[in-house]
């Protein structure tokens, strides 16, 4: 079974919590367009990697069928709470746990009431209408010690496990572009990228992504990571690359903009 659609989206909750702020609302609207495209691709499950689910021991996979609650982001608590009710495809998740040995990783399932689902996953589920019974998700943690190449292996593993179950899957990598945020209170109505250099770098990478030139991307990413510091070394993009077997035809950037100085983009890949 092929990967039927793939998306990269930011993990910041601001587009969900404060859509009335114009620049954040634009990104929120792009999330929703991406969600409609995802739904139209009719996946049986959505394979999700979120940089904000951080792990240091083993590779964790969400194996709880239903996770419910009210989430408050540790930074943006003044903008309100995020209710969530997330359905997971635990069959694929268990297969990923069992299959991790094939790529030399220790893995464990996470199935605990009240486990803190991360902000990025909750935001993407809310805005893209996924994590529902129609579109259950499989969520992989971001082990901080995993390299980009190991993250690609994880993405490929998840697709392989879904294939073995005959399921069509969408893929979502959740995380930001340049990570430098403003460290002071700002007027959020005039939010912008923290630096012109970050903005240039983000736009250069977005153009390369749109062109589908994976070779050029691979050679450019180390410098991008060093200079613009995309969130967590841009491992969420590598998750997508791994899931797409290292190639895609082109991509469409639904939105790109500032999230309190950091860069965020909603990107739809053509597998």
């Amino acid at each position: 079974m092929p990967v039927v659609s793939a998306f990269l989206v930011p993990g910041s909750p601001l587009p969900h919590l404060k859509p009335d702020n114009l620049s954040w609302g634009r990104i929120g609207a792009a999330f929703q367009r991406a969600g409609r495209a995802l739904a139209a691709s009719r996946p049986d499950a959505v394979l999700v990697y979120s940089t904000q689910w951080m792990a240091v021991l083993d590779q964790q996979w969400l194996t709880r069928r239903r996770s419910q609650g009210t989430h408050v982001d540790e930074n943006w608590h003044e903008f309100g709470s995020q209710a969530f009710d997330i359905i997971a495809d635990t069959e694929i998740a268990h297969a990923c746990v069992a299959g991790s040995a094939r790529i030399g990783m220790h893995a464990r399932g996470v199935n605990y009431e009240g486990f803190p689902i991360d902000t990025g996953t909750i935001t993407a589920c809310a805005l893209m209408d996924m994590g529902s019974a129609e579109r259950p998700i499989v969520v992989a943690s971001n082990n901080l010690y995993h390299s980009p190449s190991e993250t690609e292996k994880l993405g490929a593993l998840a697709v392989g496990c879904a294939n073995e179950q005959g399921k069509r899957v969408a893929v979502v990598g959740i995380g930001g572009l340049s990570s430098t945020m403003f460290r002071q209170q700002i007027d959020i109505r005039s939010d912008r990228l923290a630096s012109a250099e970050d903005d240039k770098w983000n736009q250069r990478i977005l153009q390369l992504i749109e062109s589908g030139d994976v070779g050029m991307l691979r050679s450019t990413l180390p410098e991008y990571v060093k200079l613009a510091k995309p969130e967590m070394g841009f491992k969420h993009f590598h998750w997508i690359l791994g899931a797409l077997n290292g190639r895609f035809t082109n991509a469409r950037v639904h939105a790109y903009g500032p999230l309190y100085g950091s860069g965020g983009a909603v990107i739809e890949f053509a597998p």
Partner: protein
Amino acid sequence: MAQGEILSGFLAPHPPHLVYGENPTQNEPRSQGGWEPLRWAYERARASLAELKPDVLLIHTPHWITQVGHHFLGVRQMSGRSVDPIFPNLFRYQFSLEVDVELAEACAEEGRTLGLVTKMMRNPNFRVDYGTITTLHMIRPEWDIPIVCISANNSPYYLNTKEGMGEMDLLGKGTREAIRKSGKRAVLLASNTLSHWHFHEEPAIPEDMSQEHPQNYEGYKWDMRMIALMRQGKTREVFKLLPQFIDEAFAEVKSGAFTWMFAAMQYPEIAAELYGYGTVIGTGNAVMEWPLQKAGLSRLDTSSLPAATGTEARVSVGFLTGSGRGAGEPFRSSLVD
């Protein structure tokens, strides 16, 4: 109103394994024990705290990471179920705590006066971080003393160690001033591990102590060196070495609690009481106390504030000379416990 006092400061690390090993009713998972030397260390720290009879406990936690400023819990009653995101198999804890909102607001205001960005957390649905809960349980399982809880602004990681510690120094000075004006008798808790190199896999039985030892010999030697200096009261030497300790031992004190506490205590050159040391999944943990009241140093005067504010004030800690790690570095050192 009488002026407030800082009765004591504790280095009070937060591995959830210690709660798991103790088997309190609030924690769902059951263990066969484990990490006894550290848990016994906390027993001694609990006894000392009980004798002090503080009005309030102030805690700085590395597991509430904030990017825009230093945040303070600002909801009076908070309760819920806390599940550790790294060790959910060990820590699923039902907690209920009371926040001293007035003192928290005062700390935030004093920090602002010194040029820091500070923010009150007023959302009643907020999830209190597991590091705070673990330290508070281990030091005072009765949960009968109000708290002030302060986030770890990520400046030491995002900027560099020197600038980050400069912020924590100011935060401590602001905290001291708020306590002084409050008239309250306070105890400070720095919720930090020392060396932070850790194993990447958990034993099949987490409490199997035959598997527990320092992950890294150099980290262990650093811990012993720093503890020896602390026990001798050589605070100036400790802070001179702190940046190197942070870099070479991957020490969690980088997140700021230790510097915050010492700044609030005005870096006393008094001998620390070591209640115990032990490793947890390879990291170095010491439970220690700087007994200001016993040393006659608990009363606060008005000379603690820097003369200047903002940038000028931030370099007031002249002996913090760390090179630091690069901006944007992932918070690896903050997550294992």
